[in-house]
């Protein structure tokens, strides 16, 4: 299955998807030392974001998000690619600065099509998402 999307940050990456139907902040929602979600009572508490194709709705939270994204990238704990419904400037800046390929505004319902654990290829430069399934 192919999905067209809008480029936020250039590049290509692929890997297993982690899907979260909510907003995400690098600050607070990602521990840059473990690559996991540390938030108590978070739906995905303890789940690993590192090296996943992370699928969510939009960015939120602290403007320090790009700093945490930088630390996560240095530690090898950043997501390999980002797919979201609509990016916002903190998230976009974080992806651009750290070189995480990222797309938004997909032309199909990503939450219908992509499940956690699916193998997904993201070509952000071309604005193309390929979902290969499990």
């Amino acid at each position, binding site marked *: 299955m192919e999905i067209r999307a809008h480029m936020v940050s250039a590049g290509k990456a692929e890997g297993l998807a982690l899907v979260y139907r909510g907003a995400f902040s690098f600050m607070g929602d990602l521990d840059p030392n473990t690559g996991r979600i540390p*938030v108590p009572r978070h739906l995905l508490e303890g789940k690993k974001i590192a090296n996943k194709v992370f699928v969510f*709705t939009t960015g*939120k939270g*602290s403007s320090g*998000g790009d700093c945490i994204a930088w630390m996560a990238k240095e530690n090898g704990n950043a997501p390999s690619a980002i797919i979201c419904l609509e990016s916002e*400037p903190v998230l976009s800046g974080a992806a651009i600065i750290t070189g995480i390929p990222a797309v938004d505004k997909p032309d199909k319902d990503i939450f219908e099509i992509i499940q956690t654990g699916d193998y997904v290829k993201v070509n952000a430069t071309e604005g193309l998402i390929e979902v290969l399934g499990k």
Partner: protein
Amino acid sequence: MRLTEEEKRMLHGDGPPGIQRAIELLVTLGDSFDAEKLVPITYGHISYDLCPEAFWNLMTEGVPPTPHRVTTHPSSQPEIYKAWGLPVSDQSAEEHERKLKRFKQLGWLRTETCAEYLLGIMPKKGDIVPMGGSCMQVANNSLFGARVDRMGVLVSLAAAVSGRYPLMGLVLQENRYARHLVELENLDVTDWTLSHYHCLGYYIGDQIPGFKPVAVNGLPHNLSFDFTRALVISMPTSGAVTLAHVVGSTPEAPTLEAALGNRKPEHVVRVGKKELSETWERLNVWDDDIVEHVSFGCPHATIDEIGRISTLVEGKELKTSLLIGSSPSVEALARHQGYADVIEKAGGQFLPVCPSIGNPFTRLDIAGHKQAKSAATNSARSAHYLAAVSGVKVFFGTEEECVEASITGRWKGEIPKWK
């Protein structure tokens, strides 16, 4: 994107590499949001503490003192931590000193606060002031009508060194009208404290999808500065709201119609007693009632808050550590007024740090074995980040409940009986 001749020289010329990289980043970011050009900024605000040193060095390389003002965010205090006997590594203390030295070379102002409007450094309506700190972004947008787009700390550094920001997002008038409407239902706010407004803001932030402006309708008009501030700054903690119009209180919202730009809202959120009770409960993350630390000043405390805390702790001996995050300037006024002495005599402390994300009492990597395992706060923003970043148990309640907890070491806070 269309660049001026000067901007083209900044990008392609043989000028400072830092400015070149900054413009390159702003153009890439602007392109992804279809910005047509860059615009000059009125002043900037950065955080050298949060900024990784490698990025700091890339962006400031060769940059001369800037013609525009740049100020800084709350700052960690390695020398003070060392004097307290905290295990500060030489490496992090030296990195701090290096960045601070460069900051001062650039001619930038060491304000060390997330609330510099309390120092008289504030934008006027329409000023373009890109800055790090989602809390001051939303405050400057909402309370003063400045044009501050939502952006990250690293992007704000690029704007500060280059003096430019893409013409996009909240810099554009057409994007400043509220798209979402919040209606308060059956709520009597007569007895509300700062914490109640924090709680409301936190709920709203969570309910608003995305980062488009919101209008809050149904509160008494001409709400106090401190209450309006508490309401708007909590939103970008649970969400991404960066401009909130409080109808009857903020400059772009004399009426609901003005706030909405005479359009219908895309969606309406209704808030009543149930939603607020659930939010208050959600902000409390604890099992036993032992309180080891109390944190005030998120956002950095006003002189009135400090005055109230001083009255509450006068003549008392605090069982827990108590931190008030405040700018050195507001602390100086508190000292001048006699409040600081009273608070320090009881056992409280002032620091120009971020008491939520950079709290030296709760952060294991700063406090080491002296880490407080639980903290009480009157700020929803603080409650959120103390739990998420420091990983400690959190008690959320009113100023009075927090001071009481600091005196007894026990939490007796209760969920308010909403009227």
